């Protein structure tokens, strides 16, 4: 059974420095994308539980439209589509961060809404009964309790978003998947290089899971 294939560890070894530049960009895009997503998600999640039906519907529209369309389409719309309408080109990294941010924001909105609504009504009533305003009650009473419940689903979303950055190859962002492709284009060692790429993604997602685990335990009383 000769496939003629011979595993060469040296290929992986030599690829590491270039792949690490991709890792850096992947982390950069994920971090800023999720920051944007967390901001958008918190705002729109709270909009969805607003007492004002118009605000509620606006939040709902954002969540539904983003959740209902593929990320790949969103990325290409932002990078190729929007510039035609606006008249200026967007750097691919900015387009990538924006896409990851808008996309994760929709899912984070649902996490925020769900956890806020899971806090017992009595907590809000107790806050209001000592004279706190609606906003103060959300901030001092509901938010800290909701945040604790947010961590496991947020961890999920962080990991999903990190892996989603690999879709940015379509707009030519030099993140991890893209650097892998480029190396293979030069040396044709698909087995070793994709294996190395997969291991690097795995290390990053494991790190997110570990860090969130530690935070979760720290918040335990």
């Amino acid at each position: 059974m000769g496939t003629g294939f011979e595993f060469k560890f040296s290929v992986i070894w030599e690829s590491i420095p270039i792949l690490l530049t991709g890792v850096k960009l992947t982390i950069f895009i994920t971090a800023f994308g999720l920051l944007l997503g967390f901001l958008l998600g918190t705002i729109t999640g709270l909009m969805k539980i607003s007492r004002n039906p118009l605000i509620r519907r606006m939040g709902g529209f954002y969540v539904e439209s983003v959740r209902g369309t593929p990320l790949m389409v969103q990325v290409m719309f932002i990078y190729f589509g929007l510039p035609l309408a606006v008249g200026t080109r967007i750097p691919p990294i900015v387009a990538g961060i924006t896409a990851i941010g808008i996309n994760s924001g929709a899912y984070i909105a649902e996490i925020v809404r769900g956890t806020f609504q899971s806090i017992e009504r009595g907590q809000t009533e107790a806050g209001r009964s000592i004279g706190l305003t609606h906003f103060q009650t959300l901030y001092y009473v509901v938010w800290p309790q909701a945040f604790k419940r947010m961590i496991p689903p947020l961890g999920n979303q962080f990991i999903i978003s990190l892996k989603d950055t690999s879709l940015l190859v379509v707009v030519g962002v030099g993140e991890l998947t893209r650097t892998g492709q480029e190396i293979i284009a030069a040396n044709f060692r698909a087995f070793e290089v994709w294996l190395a790429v997969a291991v690097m993604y795995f290390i990053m997602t494991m790190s997110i899971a570990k860090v969130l685990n530690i935070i979760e335990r720290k918040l335990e009383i």
Partner: protein
Amino acid sequence: MIEIRQLHKSFGSLEVLKNIDLTVSAGEVTVIMGPSGSGKSTLLRCINRLEDITSGTVIVDGYDVTDKATDINFIRTEAGMVFQQFNLFPHMTTLGNVTLGPLKVRKMNRKEAENLGRELLAKVGLKDKADTYPDHLSGGQKQRVAIARALALKPKVILFDEPTSALDPELVGEVLDVMKQLGREGMTMVVVTHEMGFAREVADRVIFMDGGDLHSSAA
């Protein structure tokens, strides 16, 4: 202190309170009794407007609760509330629970608020529990913290919504003792309860409610 006139409250088509008239004077302990579903808790919750009022007037310490111009958050500092389910904030220590109002509503500085908090925790017999989280307290202890939390705003009246109904029988006494002491000190209190003994011992007035009506009041 509290004046309720022609108060109506409906949830949809269900009329929970029918034409309630009630006056509570300063320093008076008023106990409201009656079967479940008779509107006792709703009446109490209309006083600090945790429930919206369908029609009628509720005046607390001279301020009209139903008036849109009244700052409802101010009314709620004047009329503190103690809940059946305690509703302590689980992410804060007992001292944190008691000082939240003084810090954020009364804008006290931390040192002042903590002194007040410790003083009140001592008053309810929980001096050594200041740094304990609610999860580590018994039901009776939780309810005493909740009373201290209400007292921290120096309210003119405290509304008790079945404060001992969620407690194990052996823990009821310690909460009632604190309430009796408050009554003796002249705190104005409106208490929804099933505790006959408490009513007999402390109440200046007992009101019976049934089907959304005030039936009779006895001294």
